[in-house]
């Protein structure tokens, strides 16, 4: 009895973290920003004053210096680390000629008036590039004790570049991101595996995004009154000034960044996501069952949606709204209620594509084009894809605030995986990306297309700016992680995966997880150690590829030759054996011997199912641990083997090629003929066109 009670207590202790979750409603607010900023469109400049209160989150460390991100200095000149790494080109966009961006700190003082500017110095913790001014530090007159706070007043001027790499202007359009001096993250010992406390404040790189502490923002934006303004958070006040400008006050708590936009041409589309009308009771029920939660736990809340649309994209207003609702619904159901009251979707101006496809807390930028108003381009789900993906970052980035510099996969990869799930739920598995002219493209299709066997020279778990070549950042932080999670889902099952993702979100909502936290959670929830998996596919560089080395099936041959037995030596001639084989075959007693060699071509080993189909029999499956390079399966049975297939359910999305996973014993030329016909037709058309010039 006593032992049983101990076991019960132990099991409760283990179960509590899993079962007694719940959505944290608030972050542990480390920072408080109060910013007053005004836009000068003529100079393309912002003039701002901010009061920043920073609380030392450590319970043991005193902190004597503060570190800040000054992101806009990435665009200051050609010697910045960002420009050196990007070569002035990023995300399909080109840096404007002589369109520099910078941020100057005019003054920085403590609340008691001590001038810190003399102590301000640029530092380069990542690459030692002395010309890079994207990180600065100041020395405090008095260290901040554990749990203590310091308040600084900072006056700054920011010059925006032409839109390039997320932020800037294009004509009258402004997307104002990374625009204010933003304090880095002080990580106490133990946080994200740190041995000792210290600042985490990386330089701005071509391939990396952001990392900041949660807090509350109150921002007053003053801009010419003819501009339509959109921003992170809720608009609390709006005040027309007597100089042709208007001041808007926005507030939002539990966020770690603030962005805003201005454009006199915006068409403002308002909508409401209704937790009762946009989600059916059946969808609540199904989700609750999937997650093993009560319906109340998965209930969502209403959200005000504002779409700031370009006038030429008016016909796409509903597409933007609908896709935002799809995202609010599925991300909310699966991972947890969207906690903010507003969502602003920004449609960047033509020519400002560099500002598109970006996420900020409660504000996302999409990106569309006039042609998507019309057939056949309206069949391409580009608008939906980008809105849903960027919204997804509210969960993987804005709320689960991983360090995007060091572990970009935790937001980009998780979000790519989640975007795929959402698009699949809304539009169908094979038609998530596009469906027209008889061609359908699904999310998995594009992901797997990128999964080349040649991409085996980087680890997912790398600093974002260190992938080689830099262009593979997208694959290792978006695509491969999504395949890693999809493959994991194949192993643990859809239900368990949904519960893992939900719990991970709940546990790390408004916090800063690292990869190990996710790995530990998977082990905890499945009750199995999946380290072997993550070690190979997240920490390792290798690829997954299984194929069939050989497969053959044939009648078992009667023995031939000289045999020694109790009755003496006996010789069986080929003719005699042949005769016996014929008789056995006639009697239906001559079995088939089938031999299949399965191979592991990649270095990564995963347990796989191997399916065998024998003539007239249902498919039979066996599991191979996949560790050895080859494995031979031999069967002697009355039926001949028709085909063999490794991973027949295609659970292992990471496998670089599924076409070599199986083998038919009898060839079927129809698939090749069908495609060959089209291939020949294409070549004929080319030759006919050119040949008759």
């Amino acid at each position, binding site marked *: 009895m006593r032992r049983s009670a101990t076991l019960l207590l132990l099991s409760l202790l283990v179960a509590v973290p899993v079962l007694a979750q719940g959505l944290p409603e608030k972050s542990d607010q480390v920072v408080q920003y109060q910013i007053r900023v005004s836009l000068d469109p003529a100079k393309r400049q912002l003039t701002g004053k901010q009061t920043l209160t920073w609380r030392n989150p450590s319970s043991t460390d005193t902190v004597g210096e503060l570190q800040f991100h000054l992101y806009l200095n990435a665009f200051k000149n050609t010697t910045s680390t960002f420009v050196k790494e990007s070569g002035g080109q990023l995300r399909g966009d080109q840096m404007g000629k002589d369109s520099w961006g910078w941020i100057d700190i005019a003054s920085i003082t403590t609340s008691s008036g001590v001038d810190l500017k003399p102590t301000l110095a640029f530092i380069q913790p990542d690459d030692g590039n002395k010309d890079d001014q994207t990180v600065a530090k100041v020395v405090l007159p008095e260290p901040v004790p554990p749990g203590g706070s310091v308040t600084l007043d900072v006056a700054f001027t920011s010059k925006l570049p032409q839109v390039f790499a997320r932020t800037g202007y294009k004509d009258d359009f402004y997307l104002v991101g990374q625009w204010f001096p933003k304090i880095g993250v002080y990580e106490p010992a133990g946080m994200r595996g740190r041995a000792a406390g210290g600042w985490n404040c990386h330089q701005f790189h071509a391939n990396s995004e952001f990392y900041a502490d949660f807090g509350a923002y109150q921002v007053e934006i003053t801009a010419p009154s003819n501009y339509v303004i959109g921003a992170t958070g809720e608009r609390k006040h709006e005040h027309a000034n007597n100089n042709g400008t208007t001041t808007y006050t926005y507030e939002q708590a539990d966020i770690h960044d603030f962005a805003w936009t201005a454009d006199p041409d915006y068409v403002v589309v308002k909508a409401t996501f209704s937790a009762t009308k946009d989600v059916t009771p059946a969808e609540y029920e199904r989700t609750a069952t999937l997650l093993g939660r009560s319906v109340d736990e998965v209930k969502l809340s209403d959200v005000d949606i504002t779409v700031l649309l*370009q006038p030429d994209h008016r016909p796409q207003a509903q597409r933007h709204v609908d896709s935002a609702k799809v995202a609010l619904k599925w991300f909310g159901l699966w991972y947890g209620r969207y906690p903010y009251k507003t969502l602003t979707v920004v449609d960047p101006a033509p020519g400002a594509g560099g500002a598109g496809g970006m996420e900020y807390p409660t504000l996302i930028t999409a990106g569309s084009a006039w042609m998507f108003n019309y057939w056949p381009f309206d069949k391409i789900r580009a608008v939906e894809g980008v809105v849903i993906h960027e919204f997804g970052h509210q969960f993987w980035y804005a709320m689960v605030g991983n360090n995007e510099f060091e572990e970009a996969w935790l937001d980009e990869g998780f979000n790519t995986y989640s975007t795929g799930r959402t698009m699949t739920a809304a539009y169908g598995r094979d038609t998530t990306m596009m469906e027209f002219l008889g*061609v359908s493209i699904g999310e998995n299709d594009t992901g*797997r297309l990128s999964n080349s066997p040649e991409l085996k020279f980087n680890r997912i778990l790398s600093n974002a700016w260190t992938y080689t070549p830099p262009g593979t950042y997208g694959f290792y932080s978006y695509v491969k992680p999504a395949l890693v999670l999809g493959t994991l889902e194949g192993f643990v099952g859809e239900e368990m995966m949904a519960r893992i993702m939900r719990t991970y979100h709940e546990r790390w909502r408004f916090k800063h997880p690292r990869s190990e936290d996710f790995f530990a959670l998977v082990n905890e929830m499945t009750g199995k150690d999946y380290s072997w998996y993550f070690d190979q596919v997240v920490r390792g560089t290798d690829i997954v590829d299984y194929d069939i080395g050989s497969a053959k099936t044939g009648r078992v041959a009667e023995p031939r030759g000289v045999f020694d037995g109790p009755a003496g030596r006996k010789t069986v001639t080929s003719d005699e054996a042949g005769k016996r084989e014929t008789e056995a075959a006639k009697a239906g007693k001559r079995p088939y011997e089938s031999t299949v060699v399965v191979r592991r071509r990649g270095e990564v080993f995963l347990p796989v199912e191997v399916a065998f189909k024998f003539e007239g029999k249902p498919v039979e499956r066996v599991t191979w641990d996949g560790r050895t390079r080859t494995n031979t399966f031999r069967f002697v049975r009355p039926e001949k083997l028709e085909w063999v297939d490794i991973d027949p359910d295609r659970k292992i999305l990471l496998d670089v090629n599924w076409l070599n996973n199986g083998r038919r014993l009898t060839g079927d030329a129809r698939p090749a003929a*069908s495609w060959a016909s089209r291939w020949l037709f294409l*070549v004929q058309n080319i030759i006919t066109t050119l040949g008759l010039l």
Partner: protein
Amino acid sequence: MFAHLASGLRAALKHPKLVALLWGGYLLLALVPALPGLNWLRGAMDFSPAAGTALQRFDFGLAGELSNYDHSNVFGLLTMTLLGGVLVALLSSAFAMGGTLEVLGGEGEARPFMHRFFRGGGHFFWRFVRLTIIAAVCLVIVVGVVSVGVGAATTPLADSEWEPAGYLAGFARMIVAVLVGALFLLALDYARIRVARDGGRSMFKAYVRALGFVLRRLLTAYGIAIPIVVMLAALMVCYLAYETNAPAASTWGAIATLFLIQQAVVLGRVFLRVSLVGAERQYDLTMRPTPAPAAAFVPAVEGSTSAAEQPPLSADSASPQG
């Protein structure tokens, strides 16, 4: 204009053997670069259970699997195949056009069709190759210069805040490039028609004269070509409609039907091209007086007769004169 067009269509209808020969020839030529692809597809798909989706509609996912199949450089194979196709096409064009013009211009001749086609193809081959090179050089230079000019002229449009203006600018650039490019291709056609009819050794002069001819009669020249291009586009749209709406080619019968329809489309394309050449040739004949015979031609002694001794290979004595 419509009379010439009708005349061209009639000419193509009158020469079914020519259309069939060109189709068959191009089918064989296409097989040369396409065969490696066909073999590769068979190797990848014949024994793979995963290839079964190819029997449904075009499967983008399967295309992705093919791209990674056997860790091979599929895009390299595709590129090489297509480049091979382009090379074969360019080399064969001079021969095909020579044969076509000889057949179209030799109505009423006693020589068998095949004889006329291959004689024409061989006889004009190098001259037509030179013409093609001259036309290509002119086309690239002029279209390049014009495109830069149009690009500069439409830059304000492209940079306009009104987004459709950017598309209009792009469309305008494309249309101008196509129309200017077409001018040089039409001139190439007329130059070949004249060389086939009148003979001549200076291909540069022939091309310049043909260019002048087309420039002086722009509307008619384009007016003859555009309806043919429209019919060609309609043909391709019909094919795409079939591919999109027809049941998936999953049985041998359906695959064979698809193949036959594709070949019918190619046949249609060849027919329209022969029609265009026939119409252009007819227009050229109506616009120019009969040239004086350049020399005598003795077809019985092939290859040993100098050009100077030969009349044009296609004497249009039976054709109406302008």
